[in-house]
């Protein structure tokens, strides 16, 4: 009976998720360039080509760096923000709404906004610091950080909101009891708030790292992957290989590697989330 009830959902998933995934995996084993009329089976040679492709390895490194730094910064900034929102007295509702504004903007709009501000000749930042922050997009080793900055600016409020929900689920009594026992505010935070916030933290990490690993829009609008592919993430490389260069087999291989990266990250966080936090009573 249970299986029968789940069947429609399972069928729908198979149709819209598993089917395309298998089709992509099959495509990644072929050499297909429609413009040249090429289409034949090549086994794993697309993957072998990627292993020696400097641009692919660069894109992989860019994506990993972007994910680690952006998500790390977002958590570091969101935690104090969430605590402040949690303890804010009057105007809490208005404050929360205001904090969410960057997150409400569509990413493309936010990225375009920053692209104009960071435009190295006429942008506002270029007029204030012509050779400093204003020139960041022209520097191959710095441009990726501009994309990270925009991502952090945009998504920190979202992480803060997730953490705020976690904070509100912690019973007030625990902190009060600890204070009666003479614990300092720092001690309460370290021994009570942080351990009980763990599920919310891991959930935020899960959401954000999956999202950041698939980053496309911020980079596409800010730099189109330039200068010299130094800001190109995997999804942009896959897009260009598929649709600009028209090489469907290789593009499918890049997409599949991106997908596997996302799955690996997801599994890692989910298994961490499944572990009980230390000191939590067994059910």
């Amino acid at each position, binding site marked *: 009976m249970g299986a029968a009830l789940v069947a429609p959902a399972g069928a729908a998933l198979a149709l819209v998720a598993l089917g395309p995934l298998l089709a992509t995996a099959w495509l990644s084993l072929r050499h297909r360039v429609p*413009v*040249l009329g090429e289409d034949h089976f090549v086994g794993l040679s697309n993957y072998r080509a990627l292993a020696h492709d400097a641009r692919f390895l660069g894109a992989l490194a860019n994506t990993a760096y972007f994910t680690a730094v952006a998500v790390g910064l977002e958590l570091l900034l969101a935690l104090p923000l969430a605590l402040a929102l949690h303890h804010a007295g009057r105007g809490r509702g208005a404050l929360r709404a205001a904090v969410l504004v960057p997150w409400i903007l569509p990413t493309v709009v936010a990225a375009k906004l920053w692209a104009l501000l960071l435009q190295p000749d006429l942008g506002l930042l270029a007029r204030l610091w012509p050779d400093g922050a204003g020139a960041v997009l022209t520097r191959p080793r710095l441009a990726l950080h501009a994309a990270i900055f925009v991502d952090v600016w945009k998504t920190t409020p979202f992480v803060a909101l997730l953490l705020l929900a976690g904070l509100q689920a912690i019973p007030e009594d625990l902190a009060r009891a600890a204070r009666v026992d003479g614990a300092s505010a720092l001690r309460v935070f370290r021994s009570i708030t942080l351990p009980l916030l763990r599920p919310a933290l891991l959930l935020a990490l899960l959401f954000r790292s999956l999202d950041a690993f698939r980053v496309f829009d911020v980079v596409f609008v800010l730099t189109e992957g330039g200068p*010299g592919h130094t800001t190109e993430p995997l999804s942009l490389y896959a897009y260009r290989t598929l649709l600009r260069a028209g090489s469907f087999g290789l593009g499918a291989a890049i997409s599949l590697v991106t997908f596997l990266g996302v799955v690996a990250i997801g599994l890692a966080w989910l298994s961490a989330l499944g572990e009980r936090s230390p000191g939590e009573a067994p059910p």
Partner: protein
Amino acid sequence: MRPSPRALVPVLLCAALAAGCRSHEGDARGAQRLVLRYQPLGPDPAPFRALVAAFERESGVEVELQALPNAADLAHQLLVTSLGAGGEDVDVLVLDVVWVAELARAGWLADLSDAFPPARVREEFLAGPAGAVVQGGRTYAVPWYVDVGLLYYRTDLVPEPPRTYAALAAAIRAAQAEAPGIAGYLWQGRQYEGLSCNFFEALWGYGGTALDGERLRLDSPAAREALDHLRGLVADGLSPRSVVTAAEEDARRAFQEGRAVFMRNWPYAWPLLQDPASPVRGRVGVASLPGAEGPAPGALGGWQLGISSRAPAARRAAAARLVAHLTSPDANAVLAIAYGRNPARRASYEDPRIRAAAPFIAALLPRVEAARARPVTPYYMLAGDALQGELSAAVSGLRSPAEALARAQAQADAIAGVAR
């Protein structure tokens, strides 16, 4: 018994459904219907619509206009996806100069040699676009309008436009002595197709070519000199560092604000620079791009009209008439006067209507005649992506020009080698 109005509902629904599903073969009266996929020419669609309406009246063929995004790479992607899937949903296509070889090789463009014999195309149209649409002695598209890379300069700061790179550098130094803080030469160094155009112009400026048969030849002495030159402009401060992220509009806005002495751009910038609100109005001149020893050809841009090879024979004849109508001398005049597009027909530059209403365009004849197409090879679009990244790496100082070109060459060869 009369059927109640309610009984008609299913009938009406079926009729509506049938109308919705109707193919564009034609309606019940047998009138033909063509689909033209194009990129909007400007904010006001009226002059172009009138041009199409005139064709509909004369021929009795209905034309459905489908707008494509005004970004060449996106439009290419949409065309390739739809044609590659064997779609019959489009008859007449608008094609960039660099796509014709690729799509003709793929067999997706109908051979138009009967309606537009190659000899006539070469005679009536400018050499650059004619060379792009005639492949292996057959005509695959008809030139619609052209674009060419130009040097814009400030007449109040530069007495005479420079003809060589050395003269360009000297003119910048002199102008900067006169107006301290002004930027030198603005061009397009962002990682995109515009950078490839700037690179090929420099390559031709050093007397090089990028084609060896069908093979893209990027790693040549002239190419290294060209890329050294572009990198040197940034490294020596003749161009501001911002050019490595600049596209056409970034350059045009800065130049229009009076912040630079020279700019490389397409003809579209002219009317904007001469706008009554433009700070540099009346202080701008246009010349050929400089080269190592004398003026260099500008890159040829522009669009052609082709016919999908999937269009059934019955529609192809009508499509050929539509192409003839849209590329006629009258249509050239409409595009030049209403949209500022350069005619692809040589004779149109003598057209009194254009000379009177768009003298700037009429005066561009020597430049468009000298304009050169980017390498005409089926592999251009495939290799272009790798080339853009390496050119960008070199102009931003990430790799030496020699190394960047060696890498671009290896990738282009890999693409062509796999394809063979």
